[in-house]
């Protein structure tokens, strides 16, 4: 490893982010008009990637506001992955804490749904559970089975935001309902035949899927779901999830 080159590269990156170097050799570069080509390219690529990955936020706040906010995030958190479709994992948290977005408290949760969409879009291809396999099990075996959500499935519960309604209306460029429910909304996203589809999810469904992904069996996952949502119809929940191809095959029997 060459220490001189390491220092050069570290100083070069610092200069891109506006931190001056005391090294005169580097100053000889950063004062040339060509230096800004690198600075602009790096920062523009990061902001462009965030805009591509968070289209609903761009639509909600407008291009100019988005790019200003994204630039602040891009300077604080350069990409970790060379695959820029994966960039912006922390962007929703950033928006939730971002002072100028205080008037838009749903922004972070809406960004989480854009992130869910991307994660579904790029997830591994995986066959869905064949429901007839479940039908062959005794009730005891069924309750001791752990259902695993497919790679291309995501869900999110927003406890105090109408995030799903806002996200859906803006993502599809459709109309927003006149009355929004601010008592909590959830969504289930699922890639089927190459397309990411979505539907509303209840609190119980989200808790159930959280338990499934943690490896819990059907008995304990449904118990948690009912605890979170006492009026939950468990049979109907399972039917909905199986129809939505939410589970991977094969499932695991825990005993």
């Amino acid at each position, binding site marked *: 490893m060459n220490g001189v080159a390491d220092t050069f590269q570290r100083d070069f990156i610092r200069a891109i982010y506006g931190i001056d170097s005391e090294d005169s050799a580097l100053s000889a570069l950063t004062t040339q008009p060509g230096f800004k080509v690198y600075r602009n390219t790096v920062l523009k690529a990061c902001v462009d990637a965030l805009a591509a990955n968070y289209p609903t936020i761009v639509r909600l706040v407008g291009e100019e506001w988005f790019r200003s906010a994204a630039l602040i995030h891009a300077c604080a958190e350069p990409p970790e992955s*060379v*695959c820029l479709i994966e960039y912006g994992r922390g962007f929703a948290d950033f928006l939730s804490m971002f002072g100028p977005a205080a008037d838009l408290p749903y922004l972070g949760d809406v960004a989480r749904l854009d992130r869910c969409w991307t994660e579904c879009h790029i997830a591994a291809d995986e066959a869905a559970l064949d429901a007839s396999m479940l039908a062959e099990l005794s009730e005891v075996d069924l309750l001791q089975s752990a259902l695993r959500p497919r790679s291309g499935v995501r869900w999110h519960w927003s406890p105090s935001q109408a995030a799903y309604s806002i996200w859906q209306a803006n993502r599809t460029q459709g109309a927003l309902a006149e009355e929004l429910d601010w008592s909590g909304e959830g969504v289930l996203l699922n890639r089927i035949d190459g397309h990411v589809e979505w539907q509303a999810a209840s609190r119980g469904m989200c808790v159930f899927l959280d338990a499934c992904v943690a490896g819990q069996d059907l008995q304990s996952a449904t118990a948690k779901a009912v605890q979170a949502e006492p009026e939950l119809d468990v049979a109907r929940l399972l039917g909905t999830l199986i129809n939505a191809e939410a589970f991977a095959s094969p499932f695991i029997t825990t005993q």
Partner: protein
Amino acid sequence: MKATLGAGLGLKPQHFDDALHCTQDEMWFEVHPENYLMAGGPRLAWLDAVRSRHPLSLHGVSLSLAGAAPPDAQHLGRLAGLIRRVEPALVSEHLAWSTLDRRYYPDLLPVPRTSAVLARVADNIQRAQNQLQHRIAIENPSHYLRMDNHDWSETDFLDELVRRSGCGLLVDINNVYVSAHNIGYDARTYLDNLPAEAILEIHLAGHSIDAGEDSETGLLIDSHDAPVNDAVWTLYRHLIERIGERPTLIERDDKIPDFAELMAERDRAQELLSTQGALK
């Protein structure tokens, strides 16, 4: 599918159907592998479909072969998986760096051509070639800065990289033209000094003048947002008259026109290649 590669195009999502149905002889497509390193999903299915009709070239932008650290093992692993999947005709990368301390700075950043850097780049290329089980063609960069810490000329540096690592070269003629203008050297002499037998691929692209600058004094930017410039076509003809036919790519990454317009540029390159081939 013909075994020889003629002139090809960068593959753009908006041209998917056109690419799929294109039947030109010796046609091929190039993609940035970074856009296809995901675990699954429609993008990969799309690439598979195009690959079933045409040869592909994987042109990486992020291996950071001139980086302070060796190429990232996880990245190489994913890239090796994509190579097994699409069996590309060509794999290429850049003489540049773009990662540092596990962060990615999405650009092709400049390299001081010292002997120590040469040794490191050669080592990184060898590591990558071994893991990918594929020869890599290294592309000459676009220059925007005058750096006074070079010990090697760029053509000698590339020639020595070929000797040490067994890599090939990808000659981007637009980069040569842009750099010759920006930092002041002779583009023809540069092309004449490259080792012909190592050249595996040629890139042709358009460039633009830096905003607010005039064309005499301002920087040229390798923007890939315009048709190939006439001066670049002239340099291309000059190079292939010396080295013979090589797979040639029309690169366009911004202000992307209709497929037919790109195909017209591609056909112009193909015609030059065919004429050159007839002379050999």
